[in-house]
């Protein structure tokens, strides 16, 4: 069928044939989107700010994990690791990614956002700063490390563990899913149960009252950025292990997708970011199966618009501050 000269070949049987693989792969990529989306949603919940530089925090995580591998002497073409060595390498690399991203986020907050906050600058100033930081980080990495794609060495052998429903359950996909869910679960417990988490939720609900109640707003904001950065760094490491590529603009597309996921699930809602990420991953893959890969983004964003039409606050709707304990 053609629509104004543009080809759309609807292939519903493609979806049926590929349902297993597209679902599993969609969930895997969706888990990475969710990790990044948490950073957007946390910062928005607390500061009502869309942190456009978050995609570059993610990119820093990808590079940091690559450098950690190089520092350990692992180069492209080396044989994959196994057993405890593998575990150790993965942990170290993830730690490196998380720490670098977290540090970048905190520094960014300190030197770029806090002065604006102190001076009660209008929203526009925050947005401009965010875009400026995003460009600065991108260009810094581009000039320092070149604009070519860098290859990330393979540390985990990508073996197919088993096939279920046609889905190729591979070691690296399992790693991504398990790691992402663990981290998201940890964050959820932290925000709902710990004292610092309560501080975040209080600040998100009403910053002035929280301050009156003795919450240190500056520390809460720093913690929010740190948490978002840690998660983005973990996402970056997983992304690097999964796609084995690093590039100065690698954060751009995942950043947009993750932001979309956060909005889809309900911006400012942690569980919403999780659901939004997974749903977006699934929608993208289902859409490409039925409509063709060219229509993937159109399909995903159309779904977003439809959801927002009928549920403007997103799928889960509730905000960070009003979440149930």
């Amino acid at each position, binding site marked *: 069928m053609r629509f104004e000269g543009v080809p759309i070949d609807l292939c519903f049987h493609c979806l049926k044939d590929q349902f297993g693989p597209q679902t599993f792969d969609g969930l895997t*990529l969706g888990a990475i989107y969710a990790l990044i989306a948490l950073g957007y949603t946390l910062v928005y919940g607390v500061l009502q700010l869309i942190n456009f530089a978050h995609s570059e925090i993610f990119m820093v995580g990808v590079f940091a994990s690559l450098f950690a591998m190089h520092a350990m002497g692992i180069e492209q073409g080396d044989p994959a690791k196994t057993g405890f060595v593998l575990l150790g390498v993965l942990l170290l690399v993830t730690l490196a990614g998380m720490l670098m991203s977290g540090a970048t986020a905190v520094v960014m907050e300190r030197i770029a956002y806090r002065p604006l906050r102190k001076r009660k600058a209008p929203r526009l100033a925050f947005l401009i700063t965010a875009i400026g930081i995003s460009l600065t980080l991108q260009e810094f990495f581009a000039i320092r490390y070149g604009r070519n794609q860098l290859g990330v060495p*393979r540390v985990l052998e990508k073996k197919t563990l088993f096939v279920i429903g046609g889905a190729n359950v591979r070691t690296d996909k399992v790693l991504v899913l398990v790691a992402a869910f663990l981290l998201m679960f940890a964050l959820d417990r932290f925000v709902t149960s710990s004292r610092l988490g309560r501080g975040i939720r209080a600040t998100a609900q009403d910053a002035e009252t929280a301050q009156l109640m003795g919450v240190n707003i500056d520390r809460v904001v720093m913690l929010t950025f740190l948490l978002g950065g840690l998660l983005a760094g973990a996402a970056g490491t997983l992304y690097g292990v999964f796609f084995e590529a690093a590039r100065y603009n690698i954060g751009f597309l995942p950043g947009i997708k993750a932001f979309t996921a956060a909005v889809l699930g309900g911006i400012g809602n942690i569980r919403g970011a999780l659901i939004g990420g997974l749903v977006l991953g699934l929608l993208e893959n289902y859409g490409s199966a039925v409509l063709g*890969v060219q229509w993937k983004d159109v399909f995903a964003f159309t779904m977003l618009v439809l959801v927002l039409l009928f549920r403007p606050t997103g799928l889960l709707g509730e905000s960070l501050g009003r979440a149930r304990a």
Partner: protein
Amino acid sequence: MPHARARTIRAVAVLAVVAAMGLVACGKSKKSTSASTGKTVYIGFVGAKTGDNANLGINIRDGIKVAIDEENAKKDGPTIALKEFDTAGDPAQATTVAPQFIQDTSIIGTVGPAFSGETKALIPLYQDAKLVFISPSATNVKLPTIVSPETVFHRVIADDALQASGIASYLSQTVKPKSVAFINDNSEYGKGLAVDVQRLSVDKGIKAATTQVIDPKAQDFSATVNAVKASGADTVFYGGYYAAAGLLRKQLVDAGVKGTFVSGDGSLDKGFVTAAGPAAAEGAKLTCPCNLAFSSSTGALKTFYDQFKKDIGKDPGLYSPEAYDAAKILIKGIKAGNTTRAALLDYVNNKVGSYAGISKTIKFESNGNIGSTQFFVFEVKGAEIAPSQTIVADKPAETTTTAGSGGSSGSSTTVTGSSGSTTTTVASTTTSKP
């Protein structure tokens, strides 16, 4: 007061944006390698120095440099100098940069644009300014007919009609696949090539398992990979550039689609091996209507290889020999006394004759194409690109893909192996245009 401050911030923001746009428009680097004394004549390089596929543009720039340095050392005419213009391989950016060299009347010819997309965007500007250009690498079939009449377009590489014909023959005679998945990146070059390869392959009786498109800016091709796997194809052809080609190949192999991977000249770069990883890149077949210069080359190519290695410090890459030849043609015209745009345009159109280049013998046809029929297949062996086969194809008959004319190419090909592979001569079939 919040209102006044908001207004100030808004004003500053607007000023900043305007200033940034102005800087971008006027500030792209214009480096020129000028020489010591005497009259200096400028030629331009237009191509990707930055961006995902910058290697291809840099290869061309370096090939030009070697040619210029050689000619300047002869000291038998005006000094030639190069002005470089970075398009990042992006048609939109190319259009932004174009006024810089179109309006600089000291530039009387350019080598490049490099990519088909940006060439398509810039031809009208070149034609208006009657500025001659020779592209070492833009292979899309429709480029000579973008504007009409057209006098400025020239290329020293055979177009994708030849490459598509060669790939289709290579697939049907050497690869002999059960079915092929055709994937492209939706670019001017990639889509054009993949569509033509598919059409010609199907004409030769090859089964097309599926046609897919990827977004080369993304990393995740899982949807495409799953579709290819579900289609059962044992061979994959990709039309596009090396950065995405390598990633695609890696993801295909990881998903279990391990059959032959064939791609065109856009993928013929070390960057493909880096992107795919040495394990997945092994055995990939990369083709070109152009030849590469290796340390094992002979004759003029070897001389070029040595000179390039000495001047630039690394191995010559894809299109370096073509860029060298293109620059030499322009310089030959300049040293023959054609130092204005009109004169150089006339020289390239009418007075080049048959030029013995290092990449091939160059004789421009009236529309700027060349009549080369050589087609090369390379293979990735041990993380390096090595020659595999040379195919001599007849130039296909005029093919058009517009509605109404159904001509299919008639081509006969002779497959000859180089360095040890078997030689096979194939019965030729010609179909005439209805």
